[in-house]
């Protein structure tokens, strides 16, 4: 390789010689080498358009010096650039003066004021005064373009960052320029709001205050905000965020550009899913249920001693296995480790599970052979998604896959019972009936599908594998993973929900794993068995840790009967929810922005979460609550800080030996990926299994939407109203046969529940399938059995 290939080409910027890869954009080369060229439209994650003209620089050409935009010109060997001469300064002043003549200069009341690129660059590069004495351009303002985003067309400088983002990144081209010239403006299409799951990103990248978000609008001045970097508490990608708070209230999240995870983007659920932290409904004091069912505030000491006494009594009389623990996937690794040790060593129970009966087997999630990293999609030849709709359940992974297919040329195969967000980018979409996945898999594995075979020739293969819905058992995904791993040069990323579920499993918050992903010698009961045990009386005492099984377990009626049958229930939570209603003692917990610790994402990346605000009232960290209960039960675990637990954890969990707090230095910005599966624990290769095909006339497909009726959504006013509500989606043929149509109602009856729902005719569905979004407001659980009976209600209107 020549020096040019290894070291790049030689470019002279303001007299300084630098080397950079040939073809890199000049604006980036300059910035990486200490020369900031002002810009508005250029964004490193979007395609360059050269529209704002702010980055004009002089380059030398054989025909004399020439003004070019640094954001559109790739560097070449010998390029000589001047970014500071008088001509460049004159151009910069001119551009800023043009941009400001019609800008309202309402900075004192603008959300962006104080952190505004237009302000900042006017300060650094602007003319200092305007010569414009004419009437400014006026538009009605602000106008809502979605439930979350408002547009001020007078502030807008027409840089196209928002329109490019919407089109290029999530593939939601719902905003566009309209009119032209002086009348050019950003607009939505008639009667089509900018209802992208990713709309908030446009607010973050807007270089002025033209786009503002309703949850943050007029809430703070940027200079009053303090910020701390942390890890997003919503999905398992471990997205890097900056949490910003004022006066001890969290006011916004911003995405932080980390290549390993989210590249700066966040879904609106992540971005605006902080409002619950400030909710007036937060629990503030320990509560104990009184005779007659009301709750009274009690002191921490009283609460702890009631719990110790009751749990102690059950343990005494019936043994530790009469106790159980559910939850722990929303906390930190330290919380999870404390919980795991507490359950096993203090309560003496193996009945512990952080999964809400909606996940995959623990070995597939934690110990799989050739587990992929998120970044593997960037180099994948073929990406397979056989699992949930990534756009609904793993939004930033959706963006990553979309980018890999759209920009990097990977093949994409999507296998799902209905339309998914990635379909428009898929080379092949296979729609199948839940319950017949085994038949399809047998075909694929046997090489009977030429279309699949042809796509699979492009390797490496990276597969996202999970449950497409709750009526499809977890063993289906195991079988899919097994098939993928039979392919050469393949990797699997098993999917699971709840932010820190992977960390909790690594810490042993599972019936069959001990801390460190070590297979338990004796397997305890999983969530379903625990709930069954509570209902039957085998299990008498339950500790809920940030868990709402009534809402979250697919078979909600099982959860309700379990909790009703329990003798004594303790809930550690931030809110009252449908499950805490069954609790005897409720303990207020800190939210994730109120504590420190580590979390582990889907690929095993350990990252920090950091504290920025105090908790509500007397709320405390899970681990410290647990430590106090342990002490009251006679076992002093000896922990006085998160850091001490982290030390203990590192010692006991070999895979985490490298993931010390010091190693998770923010400057590195990408955390530490723990080895899969870890030290001396053998890797797991799932067995090929088959599931019998469901023969029922109609089968239920129950899967989540991004916005649902979970308690964290419910307590955030901005997001909760975005939940679409309950619907029964029917294939047109089935709808016709049943005498139903969009807008009419059907009655659904399963073994575990029933519901009356409005119909949406959905041609994307496989025939014979009824899709019902899971956990929508006002819709009771239908359970996880695929057999469903559907009848039309009344006459279609």
């Amino acid at each position, binding site marked *: 390789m020549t020096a040019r290939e290894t070291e790049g080409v030689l470019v002279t910027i303001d007299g300084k010689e630098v080397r950079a890869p040939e073809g890199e954009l000049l604006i980036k080369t300059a910035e990486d080498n200490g020369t900031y060229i002002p810009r508005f439209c250029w964004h490193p994650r979007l395609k360059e358009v050269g529209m704002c003209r702010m980055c004009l620089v002089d380059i030398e050409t054989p025909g004399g010096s020439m003004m070019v935009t640094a954001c559109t010109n790739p560097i070449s060997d010998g390029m000589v650039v001047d970014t500071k001469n008088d001509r460049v300064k004159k151009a910069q002043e001119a551009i800023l003066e043009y941009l400001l003549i019609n800008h309202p200069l309402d900075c004192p009341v603008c959300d962006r004021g104080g952190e505004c690129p237009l302000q900042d660059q006017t300060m650094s590069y602007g003319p200092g005064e305007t010569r414009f004495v004419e009437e400014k351009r006026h538009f009605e303002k602000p106008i809502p373009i979605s439930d979350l985003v408002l547009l001020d067309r007078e502030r807008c400088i027409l840089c196209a960052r928002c329109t490019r983002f919407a089109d290029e990144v999530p593939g939601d081209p719902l905003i566009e320029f309209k*009119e032209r010239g002086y009348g050019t403006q950003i607009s939505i299409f008639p009667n089509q709001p900018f209802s992208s799951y990713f709309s908030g990103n446009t607010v973050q990248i807007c270089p002025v205050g033209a786009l503002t978000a309703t949850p943050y609008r007029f809430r703070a001045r940027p200079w009053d905000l303090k910020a701390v970097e942390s890890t997003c508490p919503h999905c398992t990608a471990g997205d890097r965020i900056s949490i910003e708070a004022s006066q001890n209230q969290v006011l916004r999240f911003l995405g932080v550009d980390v290549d390993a995870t989210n590249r700066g983007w966040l879904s609106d659920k992540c971005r605006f899913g902080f409002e619950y932290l400030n909710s007036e409904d937060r629990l503030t004091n320990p509560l104990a249920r009184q005779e007659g069912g009301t709750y009274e505030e009690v002191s921490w000491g009283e609460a702890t001693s009631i719990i110790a006494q009751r749990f102690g009594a059950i343990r005494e009389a019936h043994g530790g296995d009469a106790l159980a623990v559910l939850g722990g996937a929303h906390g930190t690794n330290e919380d999870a480790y404390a919980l795991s040790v507490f359950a096993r060593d203090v309560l003496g129970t193996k009945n512990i599970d952080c999964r809400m009966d909606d996940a995959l087997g623990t070995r597939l999630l934690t110990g799989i052979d050739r587990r992929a990293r998120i970044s593997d999609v960037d180099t994948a030849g073929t990406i397979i998604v056989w699992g949930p709709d990534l756009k609904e359940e793993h939004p930033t992974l959706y963006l990553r896959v979309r980018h890999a297919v759209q920009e990097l040329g990977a093949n994409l195969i999507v296998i799902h019972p209905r339309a998914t967000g990635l379909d428009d980018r898929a080379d092949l979409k296979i729609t199948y009936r839940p319950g017949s996945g085994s038949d399809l898999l047998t075909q694929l594995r046997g090489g009977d599908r030429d279309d699949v075979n042809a796509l699979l020739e492009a390797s490496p293969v990276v597969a996202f594998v999970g449950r497409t819905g709750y009526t499809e058992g977890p063993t289906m995904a195991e079988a899919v993973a097994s098939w993928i791993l039979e392919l050469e040069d393949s990797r699997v990323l098993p999917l699971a929900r709840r932010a820190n579920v992977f960390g909790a499993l690594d810490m042993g918050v599972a019936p069959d794993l001990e801390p460190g992903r070590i297979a338990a010698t004796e397997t305890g009961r999983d969530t379903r068995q625990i709930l069954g045990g509570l209902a039957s009386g085998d299990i008498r005492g339950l500790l809920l840790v940030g868990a709402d099984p009534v809402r979250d377990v697919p078979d909600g009626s099982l959860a309700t009967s379990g909790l009703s049958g329990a003798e004594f229930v303790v809930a550690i939570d931030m809110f009252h929810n449908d499950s805490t209603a069954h609790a005897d003692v409720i303990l207020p917990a800190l939210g994730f922005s109120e504590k420190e610790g580590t979390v582990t994402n889907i690929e095993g990346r350990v990252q920090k979460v950091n504290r920025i605000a105090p908790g509500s009232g007397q709320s405390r960290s899970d681990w410290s609550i647990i430590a106090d209960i342990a002490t009251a039960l006679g076992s002093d675990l000896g922990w006085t800080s998160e850091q001490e637990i982290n030390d203990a954890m590192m010692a006991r969990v070999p895979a985490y030996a490298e993931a010390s707090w010091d190693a998770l230095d923010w400057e590195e910005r990408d955390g530490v990926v723990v080895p899969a599966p870890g030290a001396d624990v053998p890797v797991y290769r799932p067995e090929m299994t088959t599931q019998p095909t469901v023969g029922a006339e109609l089968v239920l497909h129950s899967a989540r939407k991004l916005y649902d009726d979970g308690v964290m959504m419910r307590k955030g006013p901005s997001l909760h109203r975005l939940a679409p509500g309950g619907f029964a989606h029917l294939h047109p043929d089935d709808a016709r046969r049943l005498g139903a149509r969009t807008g009419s109602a059907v009655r659904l009856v399963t073994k575990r529940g029933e519901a009356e729902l409005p119909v949406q005719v959905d041609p994307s569905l496989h025939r014979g399938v009824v899709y019902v979004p899971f956990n929508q407001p006002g819709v009771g659980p239908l359970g996880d059995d695929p057999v469903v009976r559907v009848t039309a209600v009344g006459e279609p209107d």
Partner: protein
Amino acid sequence: MSRPLVVTRRMVDHPTDSHTLDRYQETGGYEMARRSLDMTRDEIVETVKSANLLGRGGAAFSAGLKWSFLAPDRPAYVVVNADESEPGTFKDRQLLERDPHQLIEGLIITSWANEANHAFIYIRGEYPKPARRVQQAVDEAYAAGYLGEGIFGTDFDLEVTVHLGGGAYICGEETAMINSLEGLRGEPRLKPPYFPAAKGLYMKPTIVNNVETICNVPHVLAMGAEDFKGIAHPEDTGTFLLSLSGHVNEPGNYELPHGLTWREIIYDVAGGIRDGNELKTWIPGGASAPWFVPSLHLDMPLTKQATADAGSMIGSGAVVVMDETTCVVRAALRLVRFFAHESCGECTPCREGAPWLEMMLTRIENGQGRPVDFDVILDVSDGISIGLEWPPKMTTICALGPSAVSPIISLRDHFGDEVVAHIEGGGCPFGRVEEEEVVA
């Protein structure tokens, strides 16, 4: 004065039916297209190049050279720029209306030479009659087997699509035209990297030529490069169409050999100035071109080089003549207003700067000018078109922004006193006609 006619010969000789296929064939039409299919691409490109056929859309760039830049990627496309929108330009309209088969024949040869099996004729939407005539001619050519599959019995396929623009001047800019054809907003693309010959329509190699350029192609091949060069001027070969308008006695389209002086053009060809008035100034090559004045330019020949040396351009051949009764401030204002109105809004200097210029000129014309205004106008112009030169050193993506500055260049160079008179005299010395501010 007898002048050689090339592209208008047929319509002059057969004023009633020059647009019909029968007349076209009867006068030797489609013979050259048929013959060209036996020629190689290189032969044709070489002939057009050595004939030095210059583009007639404005830039006067060698058509053969442009063709030789065609990148190897396929499919390739040819686009005929019939979006004739420059104020004062109406020459292509006549070619489209009166001799559409000539265009199609040129297009067949151009497509064959550039290995394109699909060509587009992009006609401005305000040209319904030319569009009808062209569509009719295209239909006739399909029926005759001159377009479609296996044309003229060869194995060369050529589809031609006639497309009407939606009413934007900018779509005459070739990359904006390509965006418009693709159904995108009519906004110019970045050059580099989107030179149409490399990455044009659908990111494939694309040749975009003006109507008149393509109409010349059959004649270049029929005459041969040497004879074509022999028509008139040795460098600016062949003839060209001039759209003469304004205060002349005989406005209209004229096919002329290159190299006539402006005196010949204005006084001989166009019959002199109306009412015996004095010539004040004229636009030599379309609204984007800086103006000429009699004291400096009357005896200068109309060639690409001489016009460029004088700081303007032959452009699209639109000559607008203004006599002594003309208020140049108002004339400049009208032109600036046109460009401000037609700015696509993509880049800042043109979108914001041109309307600002319009506002200031409106005030001056209406008697609300301030002494500082002309300096501000010049400096605001300088931010769009550095140094106020032609050809422009622009801060914009395309030349529309600098075109808005051309009238300002003309005011600065020739009519500074008249601007000052407006400001100091509190209004227009030619009488008050309230100019409404019609920004954008």
